[in-house]
């Protein structure tokens, strides 16, 4: 979605605020929100792409004026509400509602600990050969999906060169909608700074993005 989270290239968002000896959390509620989000995410009632979409799919004023863990909390509440795991009334201190049938039990600490260590690779299998090779010139498609995507606006329509092939990964755009993993080849694509930002950018600089095959065309190929 063309949402407030897609920040690359925006102006006017102020100086970078550096904090000496920054604590990991700035308030006890941030610490608890972090843990609740991970513990709920580990249940598998939603996937990471749904989770990211729930955070970014907010009114831009709300998104940009919220702190990081406020955004996480809003995303968590939305995901739980959508699945009936909690109700608005419960979140407002009202009486408890029953859980949907077949709700899974909590993930115990030991199992969650093992999950943390094992990781969450989004690598997947595909029988398709990679369509692009290293060194090939490609263009990012001009896509504007209403749903989740990992193709930022600032590279759409721009030409770059494939720098690396990463293998096959779960495609976030479909996974976020519960429409399946649709595994695709993933490429590191390098865009010259001047291609993205114009002649005033430094000629020597560039930006590399990891882009899915479905986001790309061969340079010269029409959309």
């Amino acid at each position, binding site marked *: 979605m063309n949402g407030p*989270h*897609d*920040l*690359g*290239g925006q*102006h006017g*968002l*102020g*100086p*970078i*605020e*550096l*904090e000496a000896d*920054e604590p*990991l*959390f700035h*308030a006890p*509620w941030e*610490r*608890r929100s*972090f*843990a*609740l989000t991970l*513990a*709920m995410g*580990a249940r598998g009632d939603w996937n990471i792409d749904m989770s990211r979409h729930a*955070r*970014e799919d907010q009114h831009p004023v709300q998104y940009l*004026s919220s702190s*990081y863990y*406020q955004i996480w*909390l809003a995303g968590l509440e939305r995901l739980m509400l959508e699945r009936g795991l909690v109700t608005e009334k419960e*979140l407002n201190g009202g009486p408890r509602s029953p*859980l949907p049938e077949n709700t899974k039990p*909590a*993930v*115990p*600490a030991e199992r*969650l600990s093992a*999950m*943390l260590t*094992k*990781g*969450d*690779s*989004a*690598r997947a299998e595909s029988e398709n050969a990679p369509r692009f090779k290293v060194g090939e010139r490609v263009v990012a498609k001009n896509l504007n999906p209403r749903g989740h995507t*990992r193709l*930022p606006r*600032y590279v759409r329509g721009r030409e770059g060169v494939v720098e690396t092939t*990463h293998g096959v*990964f*779960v495609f976030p755009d479909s996974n976020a909608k519960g429409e399946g993993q649709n595994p695709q080849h993933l490429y590191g694509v*390098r865009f010259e700074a001047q291609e993205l930002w114009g002649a005033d950018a*430094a000629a020597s*600089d*560039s930006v*590399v*993005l*990891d882009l899915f095959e479905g986001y790309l065309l061969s340079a010269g190929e029409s959309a």
Partner: protein
Amino acid sequence: MSDSTNHDDHHHHEPSDMELRVRALESLLIEKGLVDPAALDMLIDTYEHRVGPQNGAKVVAKAWSDPEFLAWLRKDATAAVASLGFTGRQGADMVTLENGPSQHNIVVCTLCSCYPWPVLGLPPVWYKSAPYRSRVVMDPRGVLAEFGVDLPADTEIKVWDSTAEIRYLVIPQRPEGTEGWSEEGLAGLVTRNSMIGTGLALDPGSLEASS
């Protein structure tokens, strides 16, 4: 933006409101059997005490000291980093980027806050915030200046936008005057920001001066 009073109204929720809201939510989820309270404590302990930039510093110090390890990082960073015991969530597929006199790499996630947790822990607020995410892809030299880093004009800057599930760790340039240093000593020169690319490894002279 000129009306800072209104703008601030959006920013400040009463901390006590947030505390109460999150406490109530935690009680609700525990009562409904959706989360294990021990799991919450384990998660916080893991990221407050066990995982952090000290892990990444060990990777960097070994990369500086051990050519075979560096070659392994180039070939399969995930496996090489895992060999030091650093694995897991938000770092299941790792790539390392080497900074040097001719090329400087910087990592960002313009769309959210992707960051290599097993080697750097949880990201600082500035990394997750709009100013850094919006500007570093368009004006990396201006952003570096805010971090006090001034690179020669002919150094090629590459900004890596973590748009998928690959997680990037920058190997900063090894400071001069560290020949013969132990890996432990070297790790003490490796800052978190130097592993994001918004800083350089510490100059050993500055350490001696301050100690």
